[in-house]
């Protein structure tokens, strides 16, 4: 493979936070036209590295050389002028501004000294249409989904035509169709001679997209390899986690028991006549294209949103669910898909976050026992190998994946009869995914049930006993394990979709 000249070189970069050494003597070199994968466990230091490159963090020591010139002082403004553009892991958009404005944020088109709104709308609309992103540019980001917000920042990368583009975990919130658009954008950028750094926990994706891969572990570089020399994902995993993972979707056969939860003819604004049941020892997968309404259904069952009609029966009794508290009492739990806005208590520590719904177990006569609270937290931190400095560390100081694990720990600790997981493994490294899947088995062994909502088909197929497919707010079919196949599930997912555009999403 031959790439262009060296765009970015990092020499012995170090960066520490009070609790951890996040980057330890990192060396890295990326060339024009090269797509570099950056992989590593949660908390390995990937996002930190990116932020050092863009100047969002100040490095402690080491050199950064961009196009043969040392960048001794860096800041987001300086790196932008150098031609570095980053799509950060957490969606970084101004919620109150429109799509068009976010698209041009920082360099809106002007006529004279004044913003040219017409041009801004026209150009952003035209550009988004060209790359087949279908979003009304006049809407404010607040009204969009996280995926749409992220698409804006991704599309901007192509528009700005920078010398170095960094994508940090871009696909975690994207739909299939949007992911495809992303790959087209990357291809396009590469052809134009940009260097690209691509971070993802989806290793297949990394293999498909990248020319070379750098593995990071505990803040240090393990090595850089071409995808050709590695050959397969299986070769990459031990480099990352220090061991091979034999069976990712290892599923012990647990006897399926009595019905734990039954939802009959549930209807709401985005879904109609949904009937679902889960039994003890069973994982019910729910599949659908993004926007199919899976989250809405889950939230309605959990009492987070109101629904119009329908019955919810838990352990044989019809229950009335008006708020999350009711469903928690009836033994139903829900892990939300939007960790940042609905999951973490950012300013609070890990103990607080894990115990948020588990205080009853560590309280006596209404008084909290901090020792027990600590032990309870530590137990799950260890089980999920959450990378932390201390359980009394603020959760916002953790890496993205580790924050997700904290929220999962909260629910595993609660251990309700039926646990609804909405995209639980988004942003989680392979090693931990395997851990979490093993924990699923533990849950099932206790005669509990799991509803798993996931857009990642291999995971759904690997773990579920049955898969319910939702299409456009309606049940399109229920598939038994023996009939699982990607094609079949996708066909069902498109069943109620009429428009051509939507069908294209699945292809």
């Amino acid at each position: 493979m031959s790439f262009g000249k060296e765009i970015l070189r990092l020499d012995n970069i170090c960066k520490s936070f009070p609790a951890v050494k996040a980057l330890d003597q990192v060396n890295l070199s990326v060339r024009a036209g090269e797509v570099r994968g950056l992989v590593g466990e949660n908390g390995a230091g990937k996002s930190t590295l990116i932020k050092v490159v863009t100047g969002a963090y100040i490095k402690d020591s080491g050199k950064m050389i961009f196009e043969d010139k040392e960048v001794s002082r860096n800041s987001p403004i300086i790196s932008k002028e150098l031609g570095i553009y980053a799509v950060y892991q957490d969606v970084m958009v101004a919620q109150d501004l429109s799509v068009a404005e976010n698209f041009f944020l920082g360099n809106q088109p002007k006529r004279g000294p004044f913003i040219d709104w017409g041009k801004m709308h026209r150009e952003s609309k035209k550009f988004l249409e060209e790359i087949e992103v279908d979003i009304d540019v006049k809407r404010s980001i607040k009204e969009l989904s996280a995926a749409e917000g992220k698409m804006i920042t991704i599309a901007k990368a192509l528009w700005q035509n920078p010398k170095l583009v960094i994508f940090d975990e871009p696909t975690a919130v994207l739909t299939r169709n949007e992911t495809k658009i992303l790959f087209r954008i990357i291809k396009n950028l590469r052809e134009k001679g940009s260097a690209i750094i691509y971070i993802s926990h989806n290793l297949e994706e990394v293999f498909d997209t990248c020319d070379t891969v750098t593995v990071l572990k505990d803040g240090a570089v393990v090595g850089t390899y071409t995808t050709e020399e590695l050959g397969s994902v299986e070769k990459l995993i031990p480099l990352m986690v220090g061991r091979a993972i034999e069976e990712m979707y290892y599923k012990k056969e647990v006897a399926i028991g009595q019905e734990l939860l039954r939802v009959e003819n549930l209807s709401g604004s985005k879904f109609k006549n949904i009937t679902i049941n889960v039994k003890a020892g069973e994982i019910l997968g729910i599949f659908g294209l993004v926007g199919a309404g899976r989250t809405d259904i889950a939230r309605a069952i959990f009492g987070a949103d109101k629904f119009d009609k329908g019955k919810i029966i838990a352990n044989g009794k019809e229950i009335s669910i008006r708020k999350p508290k009711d469903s928690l009492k009836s033994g139903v739990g829900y892990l939300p898909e939007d960790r940042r806005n609905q999951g973490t208590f950012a300013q609070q520590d890990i103990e607080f976050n894990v115990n948020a719904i588990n205080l009853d177990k560590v309280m006596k006569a209404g008084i909290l026992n901090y020792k027990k609270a600590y032990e309870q937290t530590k137990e799950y931190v260890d089980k999920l190998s959450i990378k932390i400095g201390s359980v009394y560390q603020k959760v916002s100081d953790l890496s993205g994946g580790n924050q997700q694990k904290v929220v999962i720990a909260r629910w595993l600790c609660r251990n309700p009869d039926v646990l609804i997981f909405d995209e639980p493994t988004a942003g989680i490294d392979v090693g931990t995914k395997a851990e979490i899947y093993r924990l699923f088995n533990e849950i099932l062994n206790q005669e509990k049930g799991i509803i798993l909502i996931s857009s990642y088909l291999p995971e759904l197929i690997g773990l579920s006993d049955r898969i319910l497919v939702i299409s456009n707010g309606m049940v399109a079919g229920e598939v038994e394990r023996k009939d699982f196949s990607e094609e079949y599930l996708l066909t069902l997912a498109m069943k109620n979709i009429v428009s051509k555009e939507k069908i294209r999403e699945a292809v």
Partner: protein
Amino acid sequence: MKSNQRKAFAERNLLIILAVMAVYLTIATKGNFSSWDNITNLIRQSSINGVVAIGMTLIIITGGIDLSVGSIVGLSGMVYALLTSNRGDIQMASSLAIILALGVSALIGLANGVAVHNGKVPPFIATLGMMTLVRGIVMYSSSGRMISGLPMEFREFSVATMLGIPALAWTWIFLAIFMAFVLKYTMYGRNLYAIGSNIEAARLSGINIGSNLYNFYVTAGLFSGIAGLMLGTRMAAGVPTGGQGYELDAIASVVIGGASLSGGVGSIFGTALGALIIQTLRNGGNLLGVDPFIMQIIIGAIIILAVFFDQYLKGRKTG
């Protein structure tokens, strides 16, 4: 719904609330309320708070708050008075004194900006400290006394009219339209919303947070300074307590006008309506001659109800 439409719509609620109040007061005062005389009074009475509130709108959109505006109002008027009073030692040309008064006001604004941005002092505390400090300066420089003997043409500005509308009101209207335009059509304005909406995203988009924050705080200081001069013409003197308590009225105007104290949201037009609603309550109370204590109870209730009603109308359409 498009967000532009939604904004217009949000302000429509306030217009409705204002209209309901106006209709009620017109009936209750047998037409007195909507006499041309009273309407011009009302606008003039709102104008000083209105101008302060424009500056406050900027700061609130950044997600901050500015408690120092009232003291800056006092300072600006006092600086002008000390420099022009025919009873003092210095007797400067009015125009020069105006420039100096505004310059000092802008400087205090800048100090706020530096404390907030470079000092990382939360805006509430930075401007609270500045409120106390600046009031101390006003008191010290005037020995706590009123300074009168201001130039005649300055004093007459408070009653001057143009096309039947008071000059003070024109000042407000002009500044409001100007700033509404700036917020919508310039980088300055768009950076304001970007920073207020998500400062981290703004920073990572290469927007210079520091220089923008300075700009906003300086502007807020400047508007308070202008309001101080307006108050000066109305009081025909530099008054040591001038502007005291104005921060609350300004903040209330901005928030009633639809802005959110967590930043990113707010509009000049909304703020103007907020300022009018507040002054209408006071004006109405005076016209009706209600027992002042009962009036106070009613005003308190209406402030809450106006915003409740606004929220309710919004909620019904979007929820």
